[in-house]
């Protein structure tokens, strides 16, 4: 049930460019990514492949990003798959499969080329099958201490390279939600299922849906705030299992932006004392299992501050939340805690709607740089110095050429934010006339109508 893609590491929208002097790779062939992986795995020369998702073509490559005279380049057409053995800087088991480029021993001695027989004569000469390449550390004799090499020091024949095991190479803090290492086996030794595949286990953690969770290839991760990193397994009889990852002793946990009177983002750093839901139900203590049973026990989540019955966000939910003391209401968000202000402090002010603001502020309230009014990118402006010559649309300064009632604004340099209001505030002496006016006769066209029979039927 394992996918042949398990042996590969994927880089999305990436192409591997080799210098023209190299022999050209074979012509592309039709196939799914899994079929390409099968072909590449079966070929001794193949180390990576490009997969064109649209045309379902793959091109096998005899090099990886670590090969000389090769460079990575963004290309939305291709996904690049490279054999893990050539990319890892840690070892699995005794490291026999290690094909990395480490070329110094644990004591810092330079390795002798495998094809050389001086200063040390030996029998491990390179062949297409044994992976003995350049002077890279290898383990051709299944040495228990892992990859090694002959050294260039005539007095020291060989030495271990001291390459760490993958489970020890990258450590984790707290519950390992930020673990981004390359461990791809569970604690019982089962191989992990790739996050981008739905077999043998169907699951909701598709990498596209969780771009911030690092769901790369089939590496152990903790996208759901479990106790430790885990993965779905390639065994159909075992859905998921924890991985054994070393806990950091040297690294301090990433410091959260701690707040008490309000919360930022999703409120993972909220450490205030609100302990009641908006509907007035007290929160259940985190160390209690009644009325609701749960796995967020304070001792298992040392970095989440699950004190008393305070609203907290230990699992990356939308906002701080708690289990409630009401048996029929399991969880409630604490949206009644206000959000901390997240806008830039304004240095300048404007009168009225700011239609006569001619200042030099050129950043939005979120700190994004304004697009010059005369520019055509990243946004094609509908208002420009040409269309509004009287509006003083100079440089990228905030202006209000359309008399927007919410103040000066600008097009922004962020491709995802066409326009936004600026970091300027209304002057305190400025009086804007009351907006509350009497209702005029109004009419609507194609909205606000519903089938009232459904309403009656619903009731």
């Amino acid at each position, binding site marked *: 049930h394992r996918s042949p893609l398990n042996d590969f590491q994927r880089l999305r929208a990436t192409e591997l460019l080799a210098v023209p002097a190299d022999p050209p790779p074979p012509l592309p062939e039709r196939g799914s990514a899994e079929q390409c992986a099968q072909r590449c795995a079966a070929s001794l020369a193949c180390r990576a492949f490009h997969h064109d998702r649209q045309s379902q073509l793959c091109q096998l490559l005899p090099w990886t990003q670590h090969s000389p005279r090769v460079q990575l380049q963004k290309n939305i057409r291709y996904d690049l798959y490279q054999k893990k053995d050539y990319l890892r800087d840690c070892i699995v088991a005794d490291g026999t499969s290690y094909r990395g480029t480490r070329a110094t021993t644990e004591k810092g001695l330079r390795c002798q080329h495998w094809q050389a027989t001086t200063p040390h004569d030996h029998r491990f000469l390179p062949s297409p099958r044994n992976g003995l390449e350049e002077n890279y550390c290898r383990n051709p004799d299944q040495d228990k201490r892992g990859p090694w090499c002959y050294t260039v020091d005539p007095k020291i024949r060989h030495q271990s390279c001291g390459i760490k095991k993958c489970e020890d190479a990258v450590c984790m803090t707290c519950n390992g939600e930020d673990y981004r290492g390359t461990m791809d086996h569970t604690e019982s030794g089962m191989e992990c299922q790739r996050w981008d595949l739905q077999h043998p286990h169907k699951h909701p953690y598709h990498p*596209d849906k969780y771009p911030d969770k690092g769901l790369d290839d089939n590496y152990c991760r903790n996208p759901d705030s479990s106790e430790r990193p885990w993965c779905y397994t390639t065994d159909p009889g075992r859905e998921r299992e924890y991985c054994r990852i070393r806990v950091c002793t040297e690294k301090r946990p990433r410091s959260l932006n701690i707040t008490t009177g309000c919360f930022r983002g999703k409120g993972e750093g909220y450490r205030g004392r609100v302990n009641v839901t908006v509907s007035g139900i007290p929160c259940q203590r985190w160390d209690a299992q009644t009325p609701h049973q749960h796995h967020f026990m304070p001792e298992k989540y040392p970095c989440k501050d699950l004190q008393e019955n305070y609203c907290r966000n230990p699992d990356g939910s939308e906002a701080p939340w708690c289990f409630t003391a009401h048996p029929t209401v399991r969880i409630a*968000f604490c949206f009644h805690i206000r959000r901390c202000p997240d806008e830039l402090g304004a240095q300048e002010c404007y009168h009225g709607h700011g239609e006569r603001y001619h200042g030099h502020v050129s950043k939005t309230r979120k700190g994004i740089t304004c697009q010059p009014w005369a520019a055509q990118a990243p946004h094609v402006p509908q208002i420009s110095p040409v269309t509004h010559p009287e509006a003083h649309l100079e440089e990228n300064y905030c202006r209000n050429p359309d008399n927007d009632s919410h103040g000066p604004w600008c097009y922004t340099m962020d491709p995802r934010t066409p326009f936004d209001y600026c970091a300027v505030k209304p002057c305190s002496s400025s009086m804007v006339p009351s907006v509350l006016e009497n209702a005029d006769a109004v009419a609507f066209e194609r909205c606000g109508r519903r089938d009232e029979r459904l309403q009656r039927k619903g009731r």
Partner: protein
Amino acid sequence: IVGGQPGNSPWTVSIRNRAGVHFCGGSLVKEQWVISTRQCFSSCGADLAGYKVQLGTLFKDPGPGDPVQQTIPITRIVCGPSESQLVMLKLARPATLNRRVALICLPPERYVVPAGTICEIAGWGETRGTADGSVLNVARLPVLAHGECNTALRGRLKEGELCTAPLRAGVGACEGDYGGPLACLTADCWVLEGVITPSRVCARTDQPALFIRVSLYVDWIHKVMKMG
């Protein structure tokens, strides 16, 4: 909704997180645009990959065979003017309008809903045991004059807020309803006059309920839709 009844509100949408769990409401103002409240979202630049809106169903968690349900990914969030606490969500594709999915009208700019106008709130939020929480509930609330509300709140009412009159029976929005509509019937059409915003207590008796006054931000809403 506390004190409501199961009902039909074809412009009310359920906003679902990556796990598919409902967490806030919203209103469909254009085939590809939903209005909700800032409090429901982590930031104005939040990556909402995996977040979706669900439309066209009365059930909070409809079965896979629900024939009229539409689920559409959210592609972008745009935050409103700072004091508005509004957000607009752009959908990955236009919603299909039908008997169960409809657009709600936007009020004219700076329009003031006359006191006494009957409006509706709708949502899949907490009912506090007053109704079936697995279906969309709707409750009716009359609009309170701005001056009267300001007096009741000892002058703390902002122009960008809209009040409904206090009721003896506890009727109002609650957790899970935030971002949803206060829809008022004007000229035979339902108009999005207010947006439900988090408050400290649900459905407090004898106290006016506060909503974001949408008519103040209609120019911004049109500008966002125009600029795409």
